[in-house]
């Protein structure tokens, strides 16, 4: 009896044992803590809610078999059968339905100050098809108004030339945005928060660009825990590490190295025309440090460095020009350190200060001819933002640049008109060393005025003043923008403004150019609307429609007597529409730009501009299926105009033919068409994610002409085609 009683007591106590279960709910793969989520234990109908760190705690849980259940919107329901026992470090991983998806939604809106701006966030450009593995600037070519530039992937904005576009990192100008003229941009995509395009009619914050502004903004390093990423594909490999240093500081370091040279060496081995003596390489390094100094001050420093190097021997001269043969060496490098301090002075006043210190170096050596440029650069930006009242806000800013440049040069001048360049051998040799200090001073005032707090109108009477020491010019640039919020779904906008950019260094050089040259100017007129048909939903259609007109004056053109003069004029007009549609797993967008860009050059008449692409259509779509993402981009773009060469005159002294030009830009290449596809597959593990992707550019191998190759005497020609089908396979791991 005693024995029976004892057994009964033991059994009863076992059945009624109660335990405590403590754990953390994390997002699977990213280990992100999930806060305010209900965790249930069945069949006991117990519930706990996670804290901000994702932790939860159950007390008095009957020991024994049980089921943990978490059901959260956007995540796959977790049902885990457990043997409930005393646990202190339980980890539950909740798997998202979609981790990242290529979205057509421009999510830069929240931080976008300028209605004219278009932005792509990291999530958007990382998944963009045809972007060489998620390159932000190449992905920005999907945006309205950005032209097709072929293999070089220059940024052609609304029919303006590449030199008319300014490239910025965190608001500070950099000399190049692409490695090797267009393979990938100079910052690893994962270190970029967003890429922004300001095509026309933009505010007074930026200047010095008739065409447009392309800006990269580096991300703020995450500070929740240590994160890492590494990738490898056919062309390059790289990695990133970011995380907290202490409670108030975080860091990011990233780097990339390209081995495309080894690929090109294979090409060169089968080509008698050139020998690659050193494999072309490029690398870039990015590091970011942020610190919340106190409640009012946030400090961020970004370091960016980029280097491209190429060396080869041309056995046959390029373009049949004896002056372009033999050894060719090119090295382009720059770095910038960009400290930024943001001070929230009070609830209505904010001060942003930043400075960029760096160095640009370009060396091009063709046999004994060379260009060696070393430039020490400091740029500075400040902006005081003051919200005077709910109806009046101002932004007062400075945008300055100082550089000391040394140039060693031994190159002939090379006349070019209509995109057809005379051989180097014909030009007069210029050999000299020069150097000096140049500076550009800029100040601006941006005002946002509402007639009254409930007004649908906002007026932005802005102004910018620039001084260029190069040609000692001061420019007052009024810029006026207005917006009318018809209702919550319809925004109308318009702008008119003057934009000025200093002449290019070779144009204002007293040795090469004309030191009396003036700065080209452009009046921009824009009108547009954005209509959101989604009515608060995340699904549906959003349409943006813009029209633009640019009047170009004082354009710099070649001059036989003075090297250059300012008698060129032109105009650019066009319209663009972007329609974005999203529903369930589908997202798609249609981007169409109509463009008519012409230049008037005395002595050569009026002609289309080199980058006049009448029709530019981009169709992009994406489909998510569980861990798979399929995306595609189709582009159809009118062919660029070109100047036909109708013959050549033999220069018997230099053994070269000088091209005889037909009417400039009187002919066009065939239309460009290309389909790019991309497939991503994610493998989600508890603490890390593996992504494999296949990016195929020019899927059906369209033979798109990009330029013309001539026989030595210009008697015959053939089209040079752009990139053939180019598959890229890569894998990326991240934690």
């Amino acid at each position, binding site marked *: 009896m005693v024995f029976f009683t004892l057994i009964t007591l033991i059994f009863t106590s076992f059945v009624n044992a109660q335990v405590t279960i403590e754990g953390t709910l994390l997002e699977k793969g990213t280990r992100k803590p999930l806060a305010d989520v209900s965790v249930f234990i069945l069949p006991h109908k117990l519930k706990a809610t996670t804290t901000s760190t994702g932790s939860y705690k159950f007390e008095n849980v009957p020991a024994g078999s049980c089921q943990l259940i978490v059901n959260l919107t956007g995540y796959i329901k977790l049902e885990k059968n457990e043997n409930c026992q005393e646990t202190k470090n339980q980890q539950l991983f909740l798997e998202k339905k979609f981790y990242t998806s290529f979205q057509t939604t421009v999510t830069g809106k929240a931080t976008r100050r300028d209605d004219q701006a278009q932005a792509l966030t990291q999530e958007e450009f990382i998944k963009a098809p045809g972007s060489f593995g998620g390159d932000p600037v190449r992905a920005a070519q999907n945006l309205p108004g950005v032209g097709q530039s*072929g*293999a*070089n992937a220059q940024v052609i904005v609304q029919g303006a030339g590449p*030199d008319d576009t300014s490239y910025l990192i965190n608001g500070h100008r950099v000399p190049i945005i692409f490695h090797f*003229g*267009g393979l990938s941009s100079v910052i690893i995509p994962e270190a970029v928060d967003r890429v922004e395009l300001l095509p026309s009619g933009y505010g007074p914050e930026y200047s010095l660009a008739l065409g447009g502004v392309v800006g990269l903004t580096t991300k703020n390093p995450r500070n929740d825990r240590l994160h890492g990423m590494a990738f490898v594909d056919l062309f390059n490999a790289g990695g990133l590490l970011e995380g907290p240093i202490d409670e108030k500081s975080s860091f990011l370091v990233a780097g990339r190295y390209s081995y495309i040279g080894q690929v090109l060496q294979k*090409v060169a081995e089968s080509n*008698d025309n050139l020998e690659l003596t050193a494999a072309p390489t490029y690398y870039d390094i990015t590091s970011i440090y942020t610190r919340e100094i106190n409640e009012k001050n946030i400090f961020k420093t970004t370091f960016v460095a980029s280097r491209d190097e*190429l060396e080869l021997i041309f*056995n*046959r*001269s*390029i373009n*049949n020009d*004896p002056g*372009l*043969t*033999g050894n060719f060496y*090119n090295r*382009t490098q720059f770095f910038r350190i960009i400290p930024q301090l943001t001070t929230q002075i009070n609830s209505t006043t904010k001060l942003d200060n930043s400075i960029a210190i760096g160095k640009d170096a*370009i060396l*091009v050596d063709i046999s004994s001819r060379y260009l060696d440029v070393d430039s020490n650069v400091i740029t500075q930006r400040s902006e005081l933002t003051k919200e005077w009242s709910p109806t009046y806000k101002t932004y007062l800013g400075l945008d300055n640049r100082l550089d000391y440049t040394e140039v060693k040069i031994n*190159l*002939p*001048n090379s*006349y*070019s008109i209509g995109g057809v*360049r*005379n051989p180097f051998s*014909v*030009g007069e040799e*210029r*050999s*000299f060393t*020069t150097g000096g200090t140049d500076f550009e001073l800029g100040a601006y005032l941006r005002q946002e005025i509402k007639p009254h707090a409930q007004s649908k109108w906002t007026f932005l009477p802005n102004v910018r003043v620039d001084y260029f020491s190069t040609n000692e010019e001061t420019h007052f640039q009024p810029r006026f923008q207005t917006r009318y919020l018809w209702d919550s779904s319809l925004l109308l906008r318009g702008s008119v403004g003057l934009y000025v950019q200093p002449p290019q260094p070779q144009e204002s050089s007293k040795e090469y150019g004309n030191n009396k040259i003036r700065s080209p100017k452009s009046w921009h007129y824009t009108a547009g609307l954005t209509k959101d048909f989604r009515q608060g939903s995340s699904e549906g259609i959003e349409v943006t429609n813009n029209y633009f007109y640019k009047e170009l004056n004082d354009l710099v053109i070649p001059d*036989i007597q003075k*090297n250059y003069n300012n008698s060129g004029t032109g105009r650019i007009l066009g319209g663009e529409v972007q329609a974005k549609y999203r529903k369930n797993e589908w997202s798609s967008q249609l981007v169409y730009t109509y463009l008519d860009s012409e230049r008037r050059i005395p002595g050569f008449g009026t002609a289309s501009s080199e980058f006049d692409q009448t029709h530019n259509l981009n169709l992009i779509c994406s489909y998510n299926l569980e861990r798979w993402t399929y995306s595609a981009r189709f582009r159809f773009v009118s062919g660029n105009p070109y100047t036909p060469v109708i013959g050549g*005159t*033999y*220069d*018997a*002294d230099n*053994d070269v033919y*000088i091209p*005889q030009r037909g009417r400039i830009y009187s002919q066009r290449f065939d239309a460009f068409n290309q389909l790019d596809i991309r497939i991503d597959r994610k493998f989600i593990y508890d603490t890390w994610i593996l992504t494999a992707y296949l990016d195929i550019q020019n899927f059906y191998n369209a033979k798109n002409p*990009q*330029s013309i*190759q*001539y*026989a*030595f*005497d210009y*008697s*015959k020609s*053939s*089209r*040079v*085609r*752009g*990139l053939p089908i180019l598959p890229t396979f890569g894998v990326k791991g991240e934690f």
Partner: protein
Amino acid sequence: MKTLILLTTLFLLSCGDDNLSKVERLSGFRVLAIEASNSEVSPGDALPSLSLHLVDNVARNIPTDVAICLDPGISFGAEPSCEGVPGTQTSSLTINTGGFTVTGGEVNYGIIPFSAPINVPGTILDGRSLQEAINGVAVIVHFTFNLGDKKVEAFKRIVATSRTQKNLNPQFAGPILKNGTTFTTNLRKNDELSIGVNAPETYTYVAVDGEVINRTETLSLAWYTTSGEFNRPKARPDQSVKYLKNGVTGSELIIVIVRDERGGVKSLVQQIPF
């Protein structure tokens, strides 16, 4: 320069048609060189006599128009022509390519002399800068060869300079060598051709920043053939060029022309029997 870098990138990454005629391959009418007895003169000197080094694949008469004028600024982008240039003088000649006796392949080679009783203006350097006076101001002799269905144009500069030591034509130091030795037999694939040249001259030059410097000429060679092709048709004198074809039959011409970057030129022809 940015254009050059982009050109190079495009060259490396794109696909072109390599079937365009090669610069070294001789197949029809072509001006290979225009040799002047003196490529540099003093103001007021008589225009030097010229020798046109030509090839053609048919025997014919070619009416040729000649225009002589001040350089309109070709190195700065002006059209290489005397059209519209004040003071232009004209002349003409008829070239009979049937008289070309050096034959190889389907091409005949000949030298046509040209001279005109014209003096370089005596005031050509008046009022010019030191740079222009020493580096020289050119008179161009422009030829238009009327071939019936098309015209071929070529020009030669005669440079008026204040240099006391005028430029002399470069000279070859020996015959064309095949793999280091003289030869009379046909070329085979990967044969290496070379030729010696005399030492380049040193001359006075004024740089764009006004500095007066002594420079040494850079000599260059242009190689031509009536069949096959070379790996390096434009070469330095210290470079050999590789022949890239096998099994040539019949006669063949190898022509090499040396230039001194100052208008000096000399040619040498090697006729190879079968």
